[in-house]
């Protein structure tokens, strides 16, 4: 329903910038002629968002990606491409993911976005979220999806990167999440909505705790790289489907957990196994979660 643009880098040497609709080819993703693995990072986020749009019969997400193994060239290419083309791309939801945190380029991008006639909804995770916070632009964003240590970074007004958190790095405990979230809001270092991903997922809006999701409890998900990225991708996908951000975040947290339980994941499992189970979770639960379903759903029924 809404045009979703997901932006990030992938750890591939010399992968040139690609921009286009995202499609699935087996366990791989295609953006134009570019093929990406969907197992981790921005690939996992794209794969999860695509699962939502495929199931709900929406247009596929668009993506802007480039390779970057830490040198920064790919991240700069992505930022510069967006700054130049954001008006023509005209996303309704702009989701920024793994990019080296460049405060100056993030500042330029945000100025472009805020100046658009139709300002898109802004979501950030990972490096883009670090850059937004460090540049003092968190308040321009609608959704952040940090994990616990990233929340500690948002709560530490002096830190410019999660590696430089002054107090919380080794002392963070899940019980302190509300306190850290309030600190992030107090210093204007939080987006309007925070989805804090972890053993228990927390959803805050404007500093107000909207929901906690702890069930089903699937500890193995914590050990699998990319399962936080899938929650972010699911959230972006559900927002694109027209759900309110807090509802999208709630559905995303539930979907990840339920798919993990369904697939009986272990620490050795990979993200594509999780994503493969999303359609079944949607079929079984989405209607009931929305609070409007009148008929029971059967796991084996078709689309």
């Amino acid at each position: 329903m809404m045009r979703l643009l997901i932006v990030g880098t992938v750890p591939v040497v010399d992968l040139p910038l690609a921009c286009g609709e995202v499609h699935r080819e087996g366990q791989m993703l295609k953006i134009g002629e570019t093929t990406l693995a969907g197992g981790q990072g921005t690939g996992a986020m794209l794969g999860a968002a695509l699962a939502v749009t495929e199931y709900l019969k929406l247009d596929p997400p668009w993506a802007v990606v480039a390779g970057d193994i830490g040198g920064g060239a790919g991240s700069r290419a992505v930022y510069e491409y967006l700054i130049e083309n954001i008006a023509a791309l005209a996303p309704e939801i702009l989701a920024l993911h793994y990019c080296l945190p460049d405060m100056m380029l993030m500042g330029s991008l945000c100025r472009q976005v805020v100046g658009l006639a139709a300002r898109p909804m802004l979501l950030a995770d990972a490096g883009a979220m670090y850059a937004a916070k460090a540049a003092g632009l968190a308040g321009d964003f609608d959704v952040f999806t940090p994990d616990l240590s990233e929340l500690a970074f948002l709560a530490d007004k002096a830190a410019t990167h999660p590696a430089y958190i002054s107090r919380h790095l080794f002392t963070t405990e899940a019980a302190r999440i509300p306190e850290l979230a309030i600190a992030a809001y107090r210093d204007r270092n939080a987006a309007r909505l925070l989805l804090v991903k972890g053993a228990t997922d927390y959803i805050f809006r404007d500093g107000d705790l909207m929901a906690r999701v702890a069930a089903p409890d699937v500890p193995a998900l914590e050990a699998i790289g990319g399962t936080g990225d899938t929650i972010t991708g699911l959230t972006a996908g559900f927002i694109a489907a027209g759900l309110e951000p807090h509802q999208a975040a709630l559905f995303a947290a539930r979907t990840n957990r339920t798919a993990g339980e369904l697939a009986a994941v272990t620490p050795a499992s990979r993200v594509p196994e999780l994503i493969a189970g999303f359609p079944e979770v949607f079929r079984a639960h989405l209607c009931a979660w929305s609070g409007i379903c009148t008929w029971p759903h059967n796991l084996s029924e078709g689309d």
Partner: protein
Amino acid sequence: METIDARVLPCPQPVVRTKKALERAPGEPVTVLVDNPESRDNVSRFARSQGCAVAVREADGGFYLDITPESTPAPAAAEGGGGVVLITDYRFGTGDERLGEILMKAFLNTLWDYDPKPAKLVFVNYGVRLTTEGSEVLETLALLEKKGVEVFSCGTCLEYYGLGEKLKVGLVSNMYAIVDVLLSASKVVRI
């Protein structure tokens, strides 16, 4: 009148699209086309919960749902039954000052999302900091005002805090008017 083709769309998409269409054009009728009884029932139930009348026509192997808002969206005063929220501070509750500010922002933003809305918001004493320059909730208050919620700030309070020239949303009020608003309200919630 907008027509939504929600055939083949899985739940909850037919309802989400209906909701968006009703939000796009408040008070305007919408026709929704669905192809299964489940979607028919879900969309009908949702529309009725929003105060709309629903007429179902079966045709072309599907269901046409003619959704008509029962009345033009009423101003908030009528929706809320004349409720008044009296806000006496820029913070919500006692305790940590900044937490109180965050909670107040959350309260007003939630008020924007909540229906029915109150008829009036009355700001007195430190509360007038919320309606004046530098407040973080001006946009929310302006949206509430557009939705029909009347916003009043105590004139004496504005002058006392040197904010007389800095009012950004709503009207200046006096104590007579505030007493009248409070005593004629069906209910008053004090924050």
